[in-house]
């Protein structure tokens, strides 16, 4: 991606996927399987999530703080699914819960202040369309499989809402079908752009801080203002991380509701 700005601001460098530990040449059957920084941060997300859930498994009748936090997360997701799908959605709770927690932790770990160590920066795995599109297609695939297994060809009645006048059925069917087929793309795109845009914004303000310090004079004032903006935008990004994880899980539940309950 082209460097932006006159003095070498490159907000896209933070998204570069690079092989680590000299694994750039590892390959199976001609396909590169290098262990990249993206893979490293996915493993870190998995480890943090695993530790978080382990801490809550004590099954005390009166939960301590950690167990209460884990129970808060599980009840949040199960309540959301009960409200949107109903009792038949229970069997999908593991998938939606894993999806929600992975996206939430991946988003939050991308904001972690690793940058205080010189030369290090965290990597947001959800800032790549490759990851978010795969998650979205998982959800969409599950919706299709569940829909067709449960209802067979009657699944197509999803695209003709109740009470449509007979004359309009062909047009409505095409429109609803197009809207349905866009779902995996919109699901993946929403998370990807939200994360990427937020991190580019943070990087631009950070580059203002550095350039202000280098300039001196009024540059120091610019740096201080930009730093305050970074604090504000980071708070906003924490909120957006949680909201985007919730929206992804919520929309997955709604699409599952469409497949299970048809209308």
């Amino acid at each position: 991606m082209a460097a932006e700005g006159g003095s070498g601001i490159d907000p896209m460098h933070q998204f570069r996927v690079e092989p680590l530990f000299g694994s750039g040449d590892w390959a199976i059957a001609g396909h590169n399987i290098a262990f990249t920084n993206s893979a490293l941060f996915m493993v870190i997300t998995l480890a943090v999530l695993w530790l978080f859930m382990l801490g809550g498994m004590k099954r005390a009748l009166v939960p301590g703080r950690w167990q209460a936090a884990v129970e808060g997360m599980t009840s949040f997701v199960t309540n959301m699914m009960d409200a949107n799908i109903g009792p038949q959605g229970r069997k999908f709770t593991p998938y939606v819960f894993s999806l929600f927690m992975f996206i939430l932790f991946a988003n939050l770990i991308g904001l972690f202040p690793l940058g205080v160590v010189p030369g290090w920066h965290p990597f947001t795995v959800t800032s790549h369309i490759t990851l978010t599109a795969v998650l979205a297609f998982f959800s969409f695939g599950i919706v299709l499989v569940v829909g067709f297994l449960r209802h067979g060809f009657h699944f197509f009645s999803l695209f003709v809402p109740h009470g449509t006048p007979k004359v309009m059925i062909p047009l409505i069917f095409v429109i609803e079908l197009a809207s349905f087929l866009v779902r995996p793309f919109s699901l993946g795109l929403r998370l990807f752009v939200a994360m990427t845009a937020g991190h580019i914004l943070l990087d631009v303000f950070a580059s203002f801080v550095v350039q202000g310090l280098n300039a001196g004079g009024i540059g120091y004032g610019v740096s201080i203002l930009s730093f305050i903006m970074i604090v504000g935008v980071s708070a906003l990004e924490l909120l957006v991380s949680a909201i985007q994880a919730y929206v992804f899980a919520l929309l997955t539940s709604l699409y599952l509701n469409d497949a299970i309950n048809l209308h």
Partner: protein
Amino acid sequence: MDLASAKVIGAGLAAIGVGMAALGVGNVFGSFLEGALRNPGAADGQQGRLFIGFAAAELLGLIAFVIAILILFVVK
């Protein structure tokens, strides 16, 4: 006008769409808050729909951003 300049102007115009998304998202949350202040008891039950509305309005703004990126980096 050469292609590079046209690309940059196109991306700037697409960014106007992102600003319109701000209007849309503000509308969603504003309507929710207005209703919630009239009927606080019913507000908590509708929070799910609030976020669905937010996601839909935000998505269209993000699509405008994606068009800006496509114009800048994908058009040859």
